């Protein structure tokens, strides 16, 4: 693996690592890591640093939905134009072009069920190129971004073994 990929592989799991430590672990200089990170941010290889939150454990109510959307692609622009129209809504978390039974997978976050329903019926379904939608509410998140949400595992090993 090249240094870039090594950095990415590491920070994908832990973006808060101290750059000094990361450089040591990768066997390079801190400046090298810092420069690579800056360059990759510039090139938009690194698109953001986010935090994985289990909102269930907080007092804030959140509702998440996965919406399968079938659309008519537009001449010359394919799916990009309608995708752009959809992803510009701030309540939309993610938009993916999908192979299979439908075209776009839209993930959505709202405060209430009603809010999500309203977005789908008022905004999404009314778009000219949208043929149909199917809304799936997320009931429970078990694992997200490669991390198991439920329980941090205890170290069960003996304190000392030879």
């Amino acid at each position: 693996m090249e240094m870039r990929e090594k950095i990415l592989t590491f920070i994908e799991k832990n973006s808060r690592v101290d750059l000094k430590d990361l450089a040591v672990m990768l066997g390079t200089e801190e400046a090298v890591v810092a420069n690579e990170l800056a360059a990759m941010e510039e090139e938009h290889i690194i698109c953001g640093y986010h935090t994985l939150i289990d909102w269930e454990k907080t007092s804030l109510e959140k509702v998440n939905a996965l919406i399968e959307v079938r659309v008519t692609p537009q001449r010359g622009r394919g799916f990009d134009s309608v995708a752009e129209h959809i992803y510009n809504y701030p309540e939309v978390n993610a938009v993916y072009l999908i192979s299979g039974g439908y075209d776009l997978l839209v993930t959505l976050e709202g405060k209430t069920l009603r809010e999500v329903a309203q977005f789908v019926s008022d905004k999404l379904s009314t778009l000219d190129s949208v043929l149909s939608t199917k809304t799936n509410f997320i009931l429970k998140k078990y694992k997200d971004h490669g991390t198991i949400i439920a329980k941090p595992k205890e170290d069960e090993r003996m304190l000392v073994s030879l």
Partner: protein
Amino acid sequence: MRNPLSSRIVEIPFSGIRKFFDIAAEMTDVISLGVGEPDFDTPWHIRDEGIYSLEKGHTAYTSNAGLKELKIEIAKYLERRFQVAYDFDKEMLITVGGSEAIDLAMRAMLDPGDEVLIPQPSYVSYVPCATLANGVPVIINLKEENDFRLTAQELEDAITPKTKILVLPFPNNPTGAIMEREDLEAIARVVIQHDLFVVSDEIYAELTYLEGKSHVTIASLPGMRERTVLINGFSKAYSMTGWRLGYACAPEAIMEQMLKIHQYAIMCAPTTSQHAAVEAVRNGDRDVEEMRDEYNGRRRYVMKRFRDMGLQCFEPFGAFYMFPCIQEFGLSSDDFATQMLQEEKVVVVPGTAFGDCGEGFLRISYAYSLESLKEALDRMEHFIQRVRASKG
């Protein structure tokens, strides 16, 4: 009542870590750098195969030597990774961990009075296994100045007319030392010249960190295959310690006798573990690589921290241990470890647990998350600063 115990067994001491375990177990907020096993769970696809084998009702004994399917996969693996070919049918045995294989090899090869050369510091079971097999353990003290590698001269100096076996424990627990091809070639010349046999414990073979150089098994050198018992297993490479599964490869004549002992003492290695191991050795290369990269990062991190603390430590390129030198503090390994446990609640293993020549050293395991390492090393740094200050 008569004394129920065998005097030979009674004379064998318990391993030296009980004390630490007992003290640490009483304390809260203890952070340990004392384990000799990986911190990763067994990769899920491997566990899944174990579960599936249970669902399918594969719960009977396997043949004594182990599942044919597993032995075939191991033979392919050894050829692919270490360029050494074994007949899965006649030269291989699946054991209950590498530990059983060590015991079998000694028992199959030793007659009373035969000497077994055991380089130390090293894993604790070679000496008692040699003794239990009526052999005479002869210790070779490895030196930090040689990066704890065994030199041909050291070997030569220890050989007597009674010497039969050389134990080769590399990559090494507790030092993290490795033996490279040239080192092994020098050893092989002496071994062949004196007509010795080698018990090569390569349980950490997958965990070496020299750029572009993977582990070399002495069995792959010319003239050595016929005088080597190669021991390896699943515990360290695939994070499968609790599955208790290892294997031995040896020339047919030795293997036959090892199998005989195994047949009477053990019957066969755990069936579920063998089914899971098929998946490990067939599809586990990537898991091994990921874990190796992770260990390597931590190894560099700990090495850097030691340098920053001014703690002398040779750079180890194998297993997941560091073996720093603490002679500057004027404390024995045991006292250092005990005091650090009491004052900073950090568990490490005194080097003396692995042989007298481990005096003045500590075994530090880096089979822990970066966060744990960081916390433990911070505490260790405080301790060291305090000891240095008190010495003036």
